[in-house]
C-alpha cells in the first residue's frame, strides 16, 4: 500500500481544520504527530520488506478503472521517504510547543501535512507530469507556511519565493511539454526507452537545460538561489527545518537526479555541468554564510552550500560518488533540520536572530547549545559525526574518478564551513552571557526532545555509518548507478 504515503497525510490534512473547530490544541497535535509517526514506522520497518524483491509499482484506480497515476517504490524513493518521515516528525514534535503563540494550529498542521504529502508523492511518482503536480502541491503549501507569521517580512519573502518558484515550474513544464512532444509519453520508462531510440541530441539538450534551471531553482543552486535566504529564515522554525532539510532536496535534487540519471541518462556533458554547479554553490554560498549576522540566514546559505556537495557527489556519476551524494543528502537533512530547530528555540527564548546580540546562551540553554553543536559539527564534517563520513565518501569518489581539483575545493569548503559554524556557536552559545538574557530558560520539553532526537540520530549514524550505508544508502545508489536501465528494465507491475 504505497498510496498510504500520500493518502494518509492528505486525509489527515483534510480532517484537521474540522477538528480544529472542536479542539484547538491537543487533538491536532496528536493527529499530526501520529500521522507522521505512522509514516516513519511504515517507511522504516515495512518499506524494506516491500522492495525486497525489487521495486514495486501501484496503479491507482477509480471505481475499478485505472487512472493515470502510478506510484512506484524503489531504494532511492525509500531513502527519501525515510528522510521525510524523520525530519517531518522532528519538526512536527517541535511544533507542539513552538506553534503555541502563532495560533491556528490545526490549519498549520493541515498545511504541513499537505506539504509532506506532496513530497511523498513526488518521491513516488513515475511520470513527468506527476512530478510537476506533486511539486506544486508541496510548493503551494510551503508558500502559505512561509507566510504563516503574516508579518511584513514573511509576506515579502513568501511572495518572492512564489514568483521565482513559478518561473522554475514554468520552465519545468515547458521541458515536460518538449519531452512529451518528442516521445508522446510522460512515463519515465516509456520516455527513457523512446529517447534511446530517438537519438535526438539537441532537443534533449534544451530540455536538460530547462530542467536544470527549474530544478536548480528548486534546489537553490547558485545562481538560482536568491529566493532561499529570504524564504527560509522567514518561515516558522519547524517549517524552515522542513524547507531546508527536505523540500529543496525532494523537489530539487531528487527530481533532478531521478530524471537525469534514470530517464535521460547521465552524459559526460551533464555530469560536468552538474559538478560545476555543485562546486560553485558550495564555495560561493559558504562565503555568503560567513558574512551573515542572522542565525537563520547563515543556516540558509549553509543549505545552499551543502546542496552543492550533494549535487557534486551525484554529478560524478560513479557508484561511490552517488552513494556519497545520497548519504550527504540524508545527513544534511537531519543536521540542517536540527540546526533550524535549535535556532527556533533560541529565537523563541530571546526574540532575536541576530548573532551579535546573543552570547553565552549555553549557560542558560545547555541542551540546545549541545544539540546545536552536534548539528554544526556534523555539517562541518567533524568525525565521528555522520557528515564527516558522507563528505569523506564524496571526496574519495572525486579523487578516484580523477577530479582532484574538485576534491581540494570540497576539502577547503569544509574548512570554511567549520569556520562559520564555529563563529555561530561561539557568538550564540559560548563566551560571556549577555546580561539581557539572564532570565532566559531552556526550551520547552517537546522542542528540546525534537532536537535531542535529531542530535542522537546524527551521532548514532556517525558511529554506525557503515551499517546505515549498506541498509539504506546502497540500495538507493544502486538504483541510480544502474542508470536508465533501472527504469526501463524493472518497473514491473
Amino acid at each position, binding site marked *: 500500500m504505497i498510496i498510504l504515503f500520500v493518502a494518509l497525510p492528505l486525509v489527515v490534512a483534510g480532517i484537521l481544520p474540522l477538528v480544529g473547530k472542536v479542539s484547538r490544541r491537543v487533538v491536532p497535535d496528536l493527529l499530526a504527530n501520529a500521522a507522521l509517526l505512522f509514516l516513519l514506522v511504515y517507511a522504516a520497518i515495512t518499506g524494506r520488506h516491500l522492495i525486497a524483491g525489487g521495486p514495486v509499482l501501484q496503479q491507482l484506480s477509480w471505481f475499478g478503472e485505472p487512472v493515470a497515476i502510478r506510484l512506484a517504490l524503489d531504494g532511492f524513493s525509500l531513502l527519501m521517504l525515510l528522510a521525510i518521515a524523520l525530519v517531518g516528525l522532528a519538526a512536527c514534535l517541535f511544533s507542539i510547543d513552538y506553534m503555541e503563540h502563532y495560533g491556528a494550529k490545526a490549519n498549520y498542521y493541515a498545511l504541513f501535512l499537505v506539504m509532506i504529502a506532496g513530497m511523498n508523492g513526488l518521491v513516488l511518482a513515475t511520470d513527468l507530469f506527476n512530478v510537476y503536480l506533486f511539486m506544486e502541491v508541496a510548493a503551494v503549501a510551503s508558500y502559505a507556511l512561509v507566510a504563516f507569521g503574516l508579518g511584513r517580512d514573511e509576506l515579502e519573502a513568501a511572495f*518572492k519565493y512564489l*514568483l*521565482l518558484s513559478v*518561473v522554475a515550474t514554468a*520552465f519545468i513544464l515547458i521541458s515536460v511539454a518538449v519531452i512529451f512532444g518528442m516521445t508522446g509519453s510522460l512515463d519515465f520508462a516509456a520516455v527513457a526507452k523512446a529517447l534511446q531510440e530517438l537519438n535526438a*541530441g*539537441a532537443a534533449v*539538450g*534544451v530540455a*536538460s*537545460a*530547462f530542467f*536544470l*534551471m527549474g530544478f*536548480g*531553482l528548486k534546489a537553490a543552486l547558485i*545562481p*538560482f538561489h*536568491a*529566493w532561499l*535566504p*529570504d524564504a527560509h529564515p522567514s518561515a516558522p522554525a519547524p517549517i524552515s527545518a522542513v524547507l531546508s532539510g527536505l523540500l529543496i532536496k525532494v523537489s530539487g535534487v531528487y527530481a533532478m537526479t531521478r530524471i537525469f540519471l534514470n530517464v535521460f541518462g547521465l*552524459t*559526460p*556533458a*551533464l555530469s*560536468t*555541468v552538474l559538478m*560545476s*554547479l555543485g562546486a560553485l554553490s558550495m564555495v*560561493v554560498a559558504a*562565503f*555568503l554564510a*560567513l*558574512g551573515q549576522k542572522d542565525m537563520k540566514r547563515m543556516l540558509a546559505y549553509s543549505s545552499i552550500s551543502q546542496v552543492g556537495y550533494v549535487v557534486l557527489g551525484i554529478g560524478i556519476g560513479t557508484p561511490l560518488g552517488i552513494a556519497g551524494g545520497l548519504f550527504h543528502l540524508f545527513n544534511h537533512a537531519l543536521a540542517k533540520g536540527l540546526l533550524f530547530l535549535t535556532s527556533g528555540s533560541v529565537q523563541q527564548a530571546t526574540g532575536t536572530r541576530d548573532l551579535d546580540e546573543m552570547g553565552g546562551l549555553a549557560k542558560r540553554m545547555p541542551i540546545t547549545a549541545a544539540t546545536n553543536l552536534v548539528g554544526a559539527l556534523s555539517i562541518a564534517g567533524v568525525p565521528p559525526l555522520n557528515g564527516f563520513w558522507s563528505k569523506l565518501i564524496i571526496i574519495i569518489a572525486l579523487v578516484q574518478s580523477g577530479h582532484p581539483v574538485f576534491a581540494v575545493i570540497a576539502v577547503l569548503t569544509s574548512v*570554511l564551513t567549520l*569556520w562559520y559554524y564555529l563563529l555561530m556557536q561561539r557568538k550564540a552559545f559560548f563566551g560571556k552571557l549577555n546580561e539581557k538574557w539572564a532570565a532566559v530558560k531552556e526550551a520547552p520539553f517537546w522542542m528540546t526532545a525534537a532536537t535531542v532526537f535529531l542530535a542522537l540520530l546524527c551521532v548514532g549514524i556517525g558511529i554506525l555509518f557503515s551499517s546505515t550505508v549498506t541498509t539504506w544508502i546502497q540500495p538507493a545508489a544502486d538504483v541510480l548507478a544502474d542508470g536508465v536501465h533501472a527504469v526501463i528494465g524493472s518497473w514491473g507491475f
Partner: protein
Amino acid sequence: MTPKMLLLPILLPAALAVVLLVIPRTLRLVRNALALAGAAVLLYYGFVFFALKDLRFNVPWLGMGIDFDLRLYHFSSFILLALAGFLILITLYSTVKMKDAPRAREFFAYVFLTAAFANGAVLANNFVPLVFFWEGLLVTLYGLITIGGRPTSGRTAVKALLISGFCDFSMILGIGLLWTVSGTLTMSQVSVEPTGLAAVAFVLMMIGAAGKAGAMPFHTWIPDAAVDAPVTFMAFLPAAFEKLLGIYLLARISLDFFKLRPGSGLSVLLMVLGAVTIVLAVLMALVQKDLKRLLSYHAVSQVGYMILGIGTAVPFGIAGGLFHMINHAMYKCGLFLSAGSVEHRTGTTELKKLGGLRKEMPLTAFGFTVCALAISGVWPLNGFVSKEMVFHGALESGYTVFAIAAWVGAIFTFASFLKAGHSVFFGERTREIPAVKESQPAIVVPILVLAALCILFGVYNKLPLTLFIQPILAGHVEAGAHLDFTSHALDIFNPVALISIGCLVLAFLLHRHGFLKSGRKPYLASEPVHNLPVVHKLYDLAEARVFDPYEQGVKVLHGLSLVLYKAVDRPIDFVFEKVVTVAGEKFTAILRKAHNGHYANYLAWCLAGLIIVAGAISLLAK
C-alpha cells in the same frame, strides 16, 4: 623461605601506603602504630634476608627476555637492610615531626611507596623492572616535595622531577644500548668491556646513577628542596635513600655490568666528576646562611667522595666509596634530623637567629656534634675511615690531583661544620628565640641511634667492613690480590692520615680567623673566604643561579620558544588571522552586495544561468 618472600619488601610497603592514605586524621595513633609496625617488619625481614643472602624469584612477564626477576644476593641484601633501617628511623621521627603537617596522610603514604619502589629497584635483576621501580620513585619525589607547602614548592618539585627525569631518561637510553651490546636484559648476566658503543652506554647509565645520587651538575634541585620541602623528606630521600640507590647502581655499573679498569678514560671521567662535585659543592656549602641549605650542599659534596672512590676502580677505593655511602647516609640523615629537631622547637634554621642551644637541647646538640665530626672526617669516627680509604684509593690509582681535591674538600667541610655547629649549638644564646625544650623522644632517639652507629662504625670499622663491604668486592679482585682492608693501616700514624689531620687543623684555623675577624659572630666565620676578590663574584653568580644548568636551560628554552613564537608562529597566525580572514571577508562583502533584494536582479541571474547552462551542455555535447 620461598622465593616468593622476595615480594614482601615490595608489596608490604605498597599495601601499607594505600592503607595509610585512607586512615582518617583522627585515627593518628592507629596510623603511627601501623607505620611503625610495618617498618619494623621490614627491618626484621631485612635482617632475615641479610642472613639468607641468596634467593631468586623469576616469573616470565612481557616476553622478549623481559622477566619479573628479583635477585637477593649479598649487595642487594645489604642495601635492603640499610633502607629498612632508615625507613624505621624516619617513620619514628615523622610520627612527631609530621604530626600536624597539613598533608601528613599523603606524606606517610609516599614514604612507604618510596620504600616499596626502592626495595623493588634494589632487588630487580632485570633492567625493565629496575626502570619501572626507578621511575616510580619520581612520582613520590614530586609528591613529597610539594608537601612542603611553600609557594615555591611546586616549582621546586617540577625542577626535581625534570632533572631526575632527564637522568633517568639517559639511564634508559644507556640500558637500551647495553641491551644491544650484551643481548640480554638479565642484570646478573651482563658483563661487557666498556669500549665503543658500550662506553656510551656506560656514560649514559652513569648519568642516571650519579643523577639519582645527586652529583653535580644534577644537584641543583636539592638546595632548593632543602628550603621548600619538609626537612624529614631531606633526611629521607636526598640524604639516605637516593644516595644508597644511586651509589648502589653506580657500583653495579662499574663493577658488574662494565669491567671498569683502573686508569682507563672512563675511570678518570668518574674521578673528575667526583672531584669537581666535592670541591664546588663544599665551597657553596661554606657560605650558606641557613642550616638546611648548608646541609643540602654537603649532601651533594659527599657524593663526590663516593663517586671518586668508585671511580678509582682499585678495590681499596671502591670499598672506600661504598663504605662512605653507608656512613654518609647515617650522619647526613642524623644531621638533617637534628636540623629538623632545632626547627621543630625554634621554628627556624637560619644560622643568624640561632645560637647556644646546647644547654636547652643537649641530646640534639650531642647527636649533631657527633654526626658533624663524622662528616668532617675526625678520628675515630666512621667518616674518617671511609675518607681515608678514598684518599688511599685515589693515591693508589696514580692521580694525586684527585686526592688533593678530596683533601681540599675535607678542609672546607670541617670549616663549614665548625661554623654551623658553632652558630647553632655553641656561642652565645640569641634573644630572638624564646626559651625552648629538648625535642620529644621520637625525634631525639633516631638522631642518637644514628650518632651511635657513626661511632660504632668508626671505632669498630672492622665490623662493617668485613660484614658489609668486603663481600661486595668478592670476585671483582684479581686472584691473590690483597683484600684485607682492615689491616691497611687505618690508624692515624701514616702519611695520608697525617695530611688529613693537617687539613682539619687548617680548617680550624680558618674558622677561628673568620670568627675573630667578624667580631665573634660564628655565622659570619666564612666571610673571609666569601669575600676573596674573584671568589665573591663567582659566589654572587652562583647564588643568582647562573651556574644552574636547569635554570639556564629553562631560560634558553624560554628564549627559543619566544623566537619560535615571533618568527614562526606569529607569521603563520598572521596568514590565517589577517590574510585569510580579510580576504574571505572582502569576498563575502562583494557577494553580499550583489544580493540587494531586487526580484528583477535575481530573475536575471536565473536567466543568465540558464543561458550559460544551455551553452555549456551544447558545447560539451559536441
